[in-house]
């Protein structure tokens, strides 16, 4: 079984690109199964189901969506195996830029929207810097020069990545990504994350609503950059 984890900011075109990739994979006889992870609500599953592929949805609700995706990798793989799939496509909610939900032996794909400007690749963090492939979308909305500057910025942040210029509407680039998926190795052994998640436990995660400093515990960072541990 191959596993592809697709991350990227909301609205960057993850779902549209994956829909074209599913068509391309099916055309050459590869059977994909898709798990869409989101936080509170999604209707992307109905879009995927139109392509006649097995689709499952996971809503993380009160849990961090990336942690939820990572925590449920085994279940997702078991489910994909039950569907007789060759490839598990996991579309993440793609929110937090501090984290990157990529296990080491998966194909890690970061989808990024060119219209967000050439400083974005520097802001996105491990989601981009630890990806194997960076898929740029909406390039038709800017000039060739701006696309090339964007590309240069991606390579500054992640010199080893494969860049694929895609278009979620026309399907440009999806065949290239589908080829990359077909050539990727199967997952094997114990999987380890490529990047360490944020430090410690957050008081807000456990339900604290009060704003004042006194009520917060854990590894905390002040606006001047000073970091401290507060707690037992």
């Amino acid at each position, binding site marked *: 079984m191959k596993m592809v984890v697709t991350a990227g900011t909301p609205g960057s075109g993850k779902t549209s690109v994956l829909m074209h990739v599913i068509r391309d994979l099916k055309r050459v006889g590869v059977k994909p199964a898709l798990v869409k992870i989101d936080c509170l609500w999604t209707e992307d599953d109905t879009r995927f189901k139109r392509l006649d592929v097995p689709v499952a949805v996971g809503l993380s609700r009160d849990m961090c969506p990336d942690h939820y995706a990572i925590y449920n990798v085994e279940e997702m793989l078991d489910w994909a195996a039950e569907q007789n799939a060759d490839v598990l496509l996991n579309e993440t909610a793609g929110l937090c830029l501090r984290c990157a939900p990529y296990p080491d032996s998966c194909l890690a794909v970061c989808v990024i929207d060119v*219209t*967000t*400007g*050439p*400083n974005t690749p520097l802001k996105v963090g491990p989601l981009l810097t630890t990806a194997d492939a960076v898929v740029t979308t909406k390039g*038709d*909305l*800017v*000039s*060739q*020069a*701006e696309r*090339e*500057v964007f*590309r*240069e*910025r991606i390579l500054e942040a992640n010199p080893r990545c494969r*860049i694929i*210029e895609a278009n979620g509407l*026309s*399907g*440009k680039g999806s*065949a*290239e990504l589908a080829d990359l998926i077909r050539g990727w190795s199967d997952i094997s052994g114990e999987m380890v994350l490529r990047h360490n998640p944020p430090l410690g436990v957050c008081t807000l995660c456990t339900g604290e609503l009060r704003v004042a400093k006194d009520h917060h515990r854990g590894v905390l960072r002040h606006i001047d950059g000073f970091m401290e541990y507060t707690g037992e």
Partner: protein
Amino acid sequence: MKPLTLTIKGGADKDGRADAVNEVEIVSGEIIGIVGPTGSGKSTLIADIEQFAQGDTPSGRSILIDGEEPEPTLRTDPRKKLVAQLSQNMHFLADMSVEDFLRMHAKSRGKNGDTANKVVELANTLTGEPINPGHPLTILSGGQSRALMTADIAVISDSPIVLIDEIENAGIKKKEALHLLAGEGKIVVVVTHDPMLALMASRRIVMKNGGMTKVISTTDQEHRVFLDIEKVDGWLTTLRETIRRGEVVVA
């Protein structure tokens, strides 16, 4: 610049019917037009050429260089890219100064960053209001953006194949711009509704419903019409400049 041949191998129109034109060969030094009603697939054909389609785009067309399938890095690496494109989308979204942007673009094309000043200088010969290298890109007008991109293509991209999508709506001196882009011995593919630009080309591909329906070679009669349009266009340009300068037109 080494002369080369660009071949467009026909694919299919929007309904999947094969292109009536199954092959077009274009050699260095030629200006070729793409014409057709809006929505007829002109920009799609330009996109096929830009990405060196290999039957893997919705049109199913393939692009050959010197009769052969281009190697994959020619499709993606800007340092090796053979194609420069002036597209309809000329609004900059990058939050950078003109100079920083041009320096970064020069770097992405493997050129010296000092070419940035040359680009601005050249752009200012095409546009009314001069561009200041220190200004943010996002405040440039449509005409200034187009002038800057035209100069960028001439200086930084400097590729043997130049694709132009509807330069006539740009608010810049179109004939000068086309000459600048065509440079010495380049292949220029220009999408246009403008009779002057269309007849300046030696041939034009006619698009309909996403397909290439025919290729027309510019006739001698058309060339004579072109010379007349050129005179009219020169007169209109003079009038436009007079009005821009706030002067009164005399009959």
